[in-house]
């Protein structure tokens, strides 16, 4: 009895001993912009940061979220022996990229309920973003959300790195996140959470921009800003290429 009391006292006393100040966190990414050029085939990003008031039981969760996209998900059904896309559901504001890196497997850091409450982790994020769709339909949207998750994982756009966060001495930490070849362009947000007893007690965010550069940017902007002129340019180039081929091979 007395022993148990002492233990609980010691447990209560421990955090107060080590954290004389409220926990806080700072973080930065190695890049503020990532440029997609002709030779882009993915890139590694490092997020580093420091915490104050971190205890031995605390864990770090890093999330990198890409620009939101509107999706349509269709279920394939067999009609006359052919698989046909049917039963469409529209989902708005679904992140095109979602990577999570943690210092421990996520399920050991917090309960699914706690994660759902704070919207951390892909299932929680998708569930929150899909709420308007769920309200509009009587169908079960879970298979649709699973399909979104599978489609993202196939292209490495949705990724989870258990123990992807390395905790160094003195409250410093480092997370490595990789951007795949199919990385969408747009504004990204990196969020860093300090978890204590299954709850996020401090957080910090940093931003990242992924954009096309060089020839990629020139062609993309040309094609989108002056689409008709671009179309004519493509035709002229094609005819010139055809003429060059004619000169090179047909004239003797």
């Amino acid at each position: 009895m007395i022993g148990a009391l002492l233990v609980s006292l010691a447990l209560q006393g421990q955090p107060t001993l080590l954290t004389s100040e409220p926990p806080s966190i700072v973080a930065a990414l190695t890049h503020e912009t990532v440029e997609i050029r002709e030779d882009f085939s993915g890139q590694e990003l490092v997020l580093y940061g420091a915490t104050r008031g971190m205890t031995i039981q605390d864990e770090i969760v890093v999330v990198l979220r890409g620009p939101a996209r509107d999706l349509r998900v269709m279920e394939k059904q067999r009609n006359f022996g052919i698989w046909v896309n049917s039963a469409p559901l529209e989902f708005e504001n679904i992140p095109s990229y979602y990577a999570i890196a943690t210092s421990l497997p996520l399920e050991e850091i917090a309960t699914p309920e706690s994660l759902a409450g704070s919207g951390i982790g892909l299932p929680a994020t998708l569930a929150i973003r899909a709420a308007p769709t769920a309200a509009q339909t009587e169908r079960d949207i879970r298979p649709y959300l699973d399909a979104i998750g599978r489609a993202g994982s196939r292209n490495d756009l949705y990724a989870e790195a258990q123990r992807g966060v390395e905790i160094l001495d003195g409250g410093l930490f480092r997370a490595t996140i990789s951007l795949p070849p199919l990385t969408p362009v747009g504004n990204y947000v990196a969020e860093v959470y300090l978890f204590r007893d299954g709850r996020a007690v401090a957080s910090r965010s940093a931003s990242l921009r992924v954009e096309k550069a060089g020839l990629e940017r020139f062609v993309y902007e040309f094609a989108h800003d002056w689409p008709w002129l671009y179309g004519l340019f493509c035709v002229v180039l094609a005819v010139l290429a055809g003429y060059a081929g004619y000169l090179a091979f047909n004239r003797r």
Partner: protein
Amino acid sequence: MQIYLPIAEISVNVFVLLGLGAGVGFLSGMFGVGGGFLMTPLLFFIGIPPAVAVSTQANQICASSASGALAHWKRKTLDLKMGLLLLAGGSAGSILGVQLFAYLRSLGQIDLFISLSYVGFLGIIGGLMFLESVRAILRRNAGGARRAGAGGGRRRRTWIDRLPFKMRFPTSGLYISVIPPVAIGFLVGTLAAIMGVGGGFVMVPAMIYILRMPTNVVVGTSLFQILFVTALTTVLQAGQNQTVDIVLAMLLTVGGVIGAQFGARAGRHMKAEELRALLAFMVIAVCLKLGWDLVVTPADLFEVMQHGRGGL
């Protein structure tokens, strides 16, 4: 060496693209066909979004038909008047096709529609070509006896001759209604927009068997129509859907121009009937592969599409 395609927005190996261009170019040089019906499905298989593959193919066919059309223009082996009529129909078909394409894409049914179009057209054309060439080979082996009536003599009157709005075509030596050429051109223009093909595999047989044009002007006239219809399709797809990838088109063109030269050389050593039987085999193989993909249970029973683009 990877290259990131600015409009398709994926990273692909340059040598895969050059190799595809050269391989399909080789076959098209050997068989004297455009090769769009082979290239477009191959682009799907390497992961190019269907909308980008079809539009970019129109641009590439524009390049490859330009050099062929120029050669025929110089040799005067094209019927300009007939070509312009086919082109008028083709332009209307292309405009309609691009609209249909955009509409079906908004419904999420474009991939299925493209596949069904391929299976239908390739199945019919491949089957007919195969029967034709088997008969020709059998006939040749039977002793080369010419079938009575083939080629020579005056042509018989058909329903085509009863149509109104007749016009004279001095180059082809024809006096026929303008309706069949415009209709054929329209069909081919629609195919160019929806399937990313030049449509020579439909137009050439139609010109020979329906319009009964002399064979020496058929290929040149067909290339003339294809050049302008694919040029129009390129501009429309770029202007309306922003789905033409110039980097992809140019890489395929470079491979294609070189491949076609070697293909043409290889083709000279083969007999025409055997070439046609081989081409029929390939057409049927592509048809069966696409047909199989329609009926086999897919790996994922759900499809995730981004608004205004292909897959996620």
